[in-house]
């Protein structure tokens, strides 16, 4: 649960859908856009959107990434044949943006607009409320032109209708009242629909029509129960370069259905150190500790379970991790490490959550042995004594449990105990 970006195509469609309701009819929003996904047939797309073959176009990846222009990932002022040719070279290809390499799968095609004016508009959440940023000098150079940006603070308990927007707009601007009304409407849309960040940079203006050329936003996904109806069946895509594996998707699905929290991110499937850790904070410390001890490259996953998950949920979670970690045997003579860790729980029943993990460990006994896995346990909290005893008992079954510790043993020492084996 956090602020999450959505695809530009979805964001623009949503804005267009609610434009009249929130902003009114004074200024019109141009909403032509066609999405290209891995399944899109480009000829069919042209039939569905006849303007594609009639207008000059822009095409760019729509994959939650910045600096597309800098990486040659925008094609401007092209006809549809040009777009198709360009897409032919880019679709399904790996590109590197910054430190991240990923496959280009989603694109957005829009009309090419050559406008006289390009404006900047953003709304951003902060602790006291929201800040509205506006400038008549929008575009990629907005950072350099930051002096031109007007900032309007809207305190969280204020009514936007009572906030003076009009007089704060630049003096060289032709129709302040009209734009003030648009900004207020947009703000209401932003607040009602659970946005935490909305930036249109730039939007071009021709007469009374606005063209949002580039739009970035983040929604607060906890607002789903208030704004979900307006969102429709919106999908929060993984950030560029992070294609969710089926296992990650599976755990994500469990997490969404559950009142508890279940998270899994594969960092390096070939890594030899696997964490099966309880607690949002504790899991970060375990990750830090593995890295501090010089094993960042061997760390296979980030993950956590918390909020008193059911036995079934911990079973499914553990099974997924064990399956992943036993797919490829380590080199002869090397070990893999499973750290079943966690802090001292406040209210999670440790023995109960361990029942699910133990069931999975029993099922994977042979594979754990084959993969030379060594298991280290540290946990505290309600009923931890019973949980640890159950873990101890697994030794008798030949499950490679090495050490089992309670809350008196420091949380991070268990990682050191495990990795000491490497030296």
């Amino acid at each position: 649960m956090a602020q999450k970006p959505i695809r530009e195509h979805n964001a623009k469609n949503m804005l267009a859908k609610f434009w009249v309701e929130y902003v009114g009819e004074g200024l019109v929003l141009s909403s032509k856009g066609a999405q290209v996904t891995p399944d899109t047939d480009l000829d069919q797309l042209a039939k569905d959107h006849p303007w594609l073959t009639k207008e000059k176009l822009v095409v760019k990846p729509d994959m939650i990434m910045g600096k597309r222009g800098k990486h040659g990932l925008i094609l401007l002022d092209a006809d549809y044949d040009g777009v198709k040719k360009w897409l032919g070279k880019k679709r399904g290809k790996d590109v590197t943006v910054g430190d991240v390499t990923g496959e280009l799968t989603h694109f957005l095609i829009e009309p090419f607009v050559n406008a006289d004016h390009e404006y900047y508009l953003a709304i951003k959440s902060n602790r006291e409320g929201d800040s509205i940023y506006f400038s008549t000098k929008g575009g990629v150079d907005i950072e350099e032109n930051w002096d031109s940006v007007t900032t309007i603070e809207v305190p969280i308990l204020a009514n936007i209708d009572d906030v003076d927007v009009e007089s704060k707009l630049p003096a060289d601007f032709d129709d302040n009242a009209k734009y003030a009304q648009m900004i207020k409407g947009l703000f209401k849309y932003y607040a009602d629909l659970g946005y935490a960040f909305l930036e249109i940079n730039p939007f071009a203006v021709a007469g009374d029509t606005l063209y949002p050329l580039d739009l970035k936003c983040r929604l607060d996904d906890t607002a789903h129960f208030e704004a979900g109806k307006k969102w429709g069946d919106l999908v929060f895509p993984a950030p560029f370069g992070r294609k969710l594996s089926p296992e990650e998707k599976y755990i994500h699905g469990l997490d969404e259905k559950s009142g508890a929290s279940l998270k899994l991110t594969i960092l390096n499937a070939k890594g030899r150190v696997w964490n099966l850790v309880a607690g949002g904070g504790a899991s970060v410390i375990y990750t830090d500790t593995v890295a501090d001890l010089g094993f960042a490259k061997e760390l296979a996953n980030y993950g956590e379970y918390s909020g008193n998950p059911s036995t079934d949920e911990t079973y499914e979670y553990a099974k997924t991790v064990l399956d992943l970690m036993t797919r490829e045997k380590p080199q002869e003579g090397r070990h893999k490490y499973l750290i079943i860790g966690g802090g001292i729980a406040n209210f999670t029943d440790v023995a109960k959550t361990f029942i699910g993990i133990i069931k999975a460990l029993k099922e994977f006994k042979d594979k754990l042995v084959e993969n030379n896995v060594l298991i280290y346990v540290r946990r505290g909290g309600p009923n931890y004594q019973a949980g640890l005893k159950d873990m101890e008992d697994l030794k008798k079954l030949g499950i490679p449990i090495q050490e089992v510790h309670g809350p008196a043993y420091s949380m991070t020492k268990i990682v050191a105990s495990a990795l000491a084996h490497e030296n």
Partner: protein
Amino acid sequence: MMVQEKPDYVLFDENTRSVVFGYQQNAIQGMLNYDFICQRKTPSVACIVNPTREGFHVCFWGPREISIPMYRTLEKALENHKDVDVMVNFASMRSAFPTTLDAMDFPQLRTIAIIAEGIPERRSKMIVAKALEKKVTIIGPATVGGIRAGAFKIGNTAGTLDNIIESNLFRTGSVAYVSKSGGLSNELNMIIGTNTDGVYEGVALGGDRYPGTLFIDHIMRYEANPDISMIVLLGEIGGKDEYEVVEALRAGKITKPVVAWCIGTSAKMFPSGVQFGHAGARADAAMETPDYKNKALKEAGAIVPGSFNDFDDKIKETFDKLVAEGKAKPPSDVKPPVIPIDYKIAMRDDIIRKPTTFMCTISDESGDELSYAGVKISEVFEHGIGIGGVIGLLWFKRVLPPWGRQFIEMVIQVTADHGPAVSGAHNAIVASRAGKDLISSLVSGMLTIGPRFGGAVDGSAQMFQPAKDSGMTPEEFVLHIKKKNVNIQGIGHRIKSVTDPDIRVTLLKKFVMENFPSHEYLDYALEVEKVTTAKRNNLILNVDGCIGICMLDLQAGIGLTKEEIKNNVDLGVLNGLFILGRSIGMMGHILDQKRLKASLYRHPWDDILFDLPERPPGWEENK
């Protein structure tokens, strides 16, 4: 009693009284257990708000039970408990916002802890703004809460009693901490509780992006509180809230030692976009990284370890230095009172045992799935054993073969109703028309079932079984009964006769003859019928008799001994089939009357013979 005046830097003390919003029984018991081992004089939970129920909640206070008042609204609760100044809000992520907003309108509340995770950020910000305006301290959302060691704890903070004792939280120390994470706060309790004189106070801010209060809010309270010797801060990746502490350190506003660490230092090793467990745990700028924060804290004068692994050592070193300088004292040796172990836990851990007062051998819903005589409810449907099969399991503890199940279902259908005139239906109708509800009317009809109405099912079985088993011939049997001067149960019909047979009996007989593995009792009864109908045409085996006798064959057919069969008959099993079947019809009549809106039934005078004496005997003498 009103709230006692406290300095602003004190949120909780050993007299703090709270209202718990939400019926969180475990958390409430946990708070009371904590009060008890801290040797508080009064429970820290003064009252509970439960929108769906009012009354009292009974829970333990040490070895004995006490009751805590429960109200439907916060207004009522606070009106009746003027000494409450803390609210522990367990409302869900949907209702946490409105309940907290309302709560801030009650000036007596100084502190509100919000436990729910998943409150929209915009809502949290509104809470923050109103709290500033109303001067209310908010802890949370998305937190376990906080603790004032030796005095008060919020909800589930610090976990179970054994942990509280191991971490020495039952007495007041002098080290105060503030942590972002609620889970890690318990780790801090252990670290501080075992390396210093103990925790004075600890607050978990919660993992959201906009928590109600920030590190600086609590650290400035700790700085102002003379009972606190040092401060521990545990921050994390994401946000910039730690920098307010950096600023205060630089400006010399914090004079007490601060041991600080921000977790998430490993994030830099991984590709962008890993969202850690907490909503706010993501670095969008260099300043939000833990490395940057740890460095800034260190440069501003905080004591910062090399990693979390050394955090406990740094805390110990710092405290020991304070002791050496005379600024802190070594731990006191207060011992906590013992709280009796919970019955549930003692049972679970085989520490105690107790004889049961109840026994059940037919059904069990205490496991994963309801079962009837060992057959899971899902299997009941998987194998389609039907109502007959279920009766077999619950009444006979047997899986009836298909012919047995089918026969029982036939019996239920055949006995379901017999028109409105029979006494059962009549009584039910009269009761229904008197405006009684379904169950009262049904019972009114049911109570007529007995020796004269419907009782012949049991009666016939009781007469025929011993007769046949003892080897009496049908003739001897008829003669034997005649000598007793009673009727043969199950024989005789008011209208039907040999020439005009009861179709119900015909159907049942046919089924038994064709499907039962043996039907000796029925054969015997039919021989008896030959004898009786020779005397009079309507002395036929009637439907009650036929059911009773065929049920003897059914039980023999599934392998019950004669003794077991007799026992079942004496227990009333056969009559039970009649009761079960007929209740269907009676309910039909009751519903029928209600739909017809039939008015109160009154029997007409002209249908009653009034035959009273002029005066009762002895009237003149005794009046």
